[in-house]
């Protein structure tokens, strides 16, 4: 937990009922629906959810690297109090990388194969900070390499001379090149083996604390999110369904989807408990279900859930849930699983 004292100040990033659609021939895909969340300086936010839940769309909206057909429809994205949606492309371009940087999902492919890695990072620096000379930039790259655990003398090599883990480190070095206030990491270690993943996550966490940066981690792997996040936002079908400290979300989830997600996840620690499934599949966002978007899969759904959409409501300080019938945390101690496993009629076919 980083910044208890700073929460009173304005957050670094604030999404305020941000809604975004993708225009398609078959109609608008309602990818992000009224997401509200805050990220403070020095904090790390984990965005979790399954493919198509809108987590990458949220992140790409912040750095504004969206495809042509993306249409922000409502809401605001405030960065240091400035509404990013009101900036023109040129203003946004100046902010991008200098203040908000990104580590991409396919980091393997985000380096240009025909340029030396050092040249690519030097270019990023001199483009955004024209006052920096080439030599100063090279020195900065060397320092960045050390910071991410790469040998200085590797910087003048070409990407194909790097292993997958080394490319990932180089991409992280590039994201840090202009000392951004916010780094968005979209599945930064998904393609890597666990031992390499472990090192890179530890290093990123260390660098974030040292430089007092904010981070948004996006991952479908909730165990990765558990390890690197101060606060966690759980998304489902374009909606933010639960927000709170990592400790709360993982130990005492209250939204039925968050509860189901935790119960579905295998761990190598502790007792080998039964895994639960969440019946059904996520909805088509061309035509999301009315009311709560999770109701067709929810074991607690009532008539109200089918008709009315639950608002994101603060249930305790710093903890928000969008559900008419949040799962009561009382009496469950550290295990969130028992209660969930008493009902679903569909889930008990494992031997």
């Amino acid at each position, binding site marked *: 937990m980083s910044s208890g004292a700073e929460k009173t100040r304005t957050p670094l990033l604030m999404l305020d009922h941000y809604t975004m659609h993708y225009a398609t021939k078959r109609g608008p895909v309602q990818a992000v629906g009224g997401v509200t969340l805050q990220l403070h300086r020095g904090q790390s936010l984990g965005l979790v959810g*399954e*493919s198509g839940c809108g987590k990458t769309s949220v992140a790409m909206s912040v750095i504004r690297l969206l495809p042509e057909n993306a249409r922000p429809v409502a809401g605001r994205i405030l960065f240091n109090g400035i509404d990013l949606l009101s900036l023109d492309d040129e203003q946004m371009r100046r902010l991008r990388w200098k203040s908000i940087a990104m580590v991409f999902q396919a980091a393997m492919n985000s380096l240009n194969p025909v340029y030396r890695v050092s040249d690519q990072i030097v270019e990023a620096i001199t483009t955004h900070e024209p006052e920096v000379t080439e030599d100063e930039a090279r020195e900065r790259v060397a320092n960045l390499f050390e910071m991410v655990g790469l040998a200085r003398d590797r910087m003048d090599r070409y990407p194909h001379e790097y*292993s997958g*883990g080394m490319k990932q480190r180089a991409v992280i070095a590039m994201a840090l090149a202009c000392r951004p206030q916010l780094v968005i990491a979209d599945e930064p270690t998904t393609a890597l*083996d*666990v*031992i*390499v*993943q*472990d*090192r890179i*996550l530890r290093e990123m966490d260390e660098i974030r604390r040292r430089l007092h940066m904010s981070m948004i981690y996006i991952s*479908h*792997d*909730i*165990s*990765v999110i*558990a*390890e690197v*996040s101060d606060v966690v936002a759980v998304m489902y079908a374009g909606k933010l369904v639960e927000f709170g400290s*990592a*400790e709360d979300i*993982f*130990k005492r989830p209250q939204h039925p989807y968050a509860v*189901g*997600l*935790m119960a*579905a*996840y*295998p*761990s*190598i*620690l502790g007792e*080998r408990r039964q*895994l*639960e*499934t*969440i019946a059904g*599949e996520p909805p088509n966002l061309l035509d999301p279900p009315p009311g709560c978007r999770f109701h067709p899969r929810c074991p607690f759904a009532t008539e109200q859930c089918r008709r009315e959409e639950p608002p994101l409501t603060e249930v305790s300080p710093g903890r928000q849930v969008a559900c008419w019938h949040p799962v009561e945390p009382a009496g469950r101690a550290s295990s969130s699983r028992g209660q969930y496993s008493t009902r679903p009629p569909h*889930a008990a*076919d*494992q*031997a």
Partner: protein
Amino acid sequence: MAVEKLDPSPITQTKPLVQVDRLKKYYPIAAPFRRAVHFVHAVDDVSFQIRPGHVFGLVGESGCGKTTTGRVLVRLTNPTSGRVLLEEKDIFRLTKLQLVQFRQSVQMMFQDPYESLNPRMTIFDIVSEPLDVNGIGSLREREERIADMLNQVGLTPPQAFLFRFPHELSGGQRQRVAIARALVTNPRFVVADEPTSMLDVSIRTGIMQLLAGLREKLGISYLYITHDLAVARYLCDDIAVMYLGKIVEQAPAEQLLRHPLHPYTRALISAVPVPDPSYQRPPVNIKGGVSRPVDPPPRCRFYERCPLATRRCANEDHPPLVERDRGHWVACYEV
């Protein structure tokens, strides 16, 4: 190898269904117009047994040889040396008739349900293809069999899926189609190469439960290839850990996770993230990264990265797998 290899399989009453015996697969690295002088030792002297109805997990990082081992076991590639016995018959010395039977009783499931299904074929055609190829049943019988199979993998009602195309289905549904296709010939042995690693959490659990349930119901044995120890824990009876072409440790699943002996297994386990924010994982205690096993020296494959390495490890051959506890085998001089 100077050191005689011990039989790395638990003593059992039942005969093994699959017996892999000193399997090697080397890939040549050929320069154009030259004879290959360097070899990648993808699988290097691997032995294990799979009992009927059991799930044998093969775990390791990319490039450790786990997929190559799986491909040899379904005859997608030939071994450099060593034998693979299915019900005591060498699968590389089969008569024509035996080969036909082999193709029915051994099947493979692949990782990516977006790549492994032909986009131009209907679900009916995809699932019935193994029956067509093997000439099993009349059209009527096939229809019944396919409907039954779709029911079993949870694609119900089957009529709603039979004449759809893969692109109309979600990832989880596609993987169910791939499972139906693999099981439609009633195989006794299935090689499953990471069939859940591309799927989302809530969908993945359903597929894991389906595989576990079908194994109970149909008595199928699996070789389950995965990089994910947590998934292996839920599906496998035994887990073998591979490193650069060698099995370095093998034990019943819980035993391996709770009492790992080999320094590589320990590192691998401590590197797995845990979905508990207050849990502090122990540091991963190994150096460097995985290299490619090109003409590796005879010593222990893990020597360069090992925190326990001694002069003996440097000078002697790769250590043999030795049984340390009932069913718990480890290849290391120092544990």
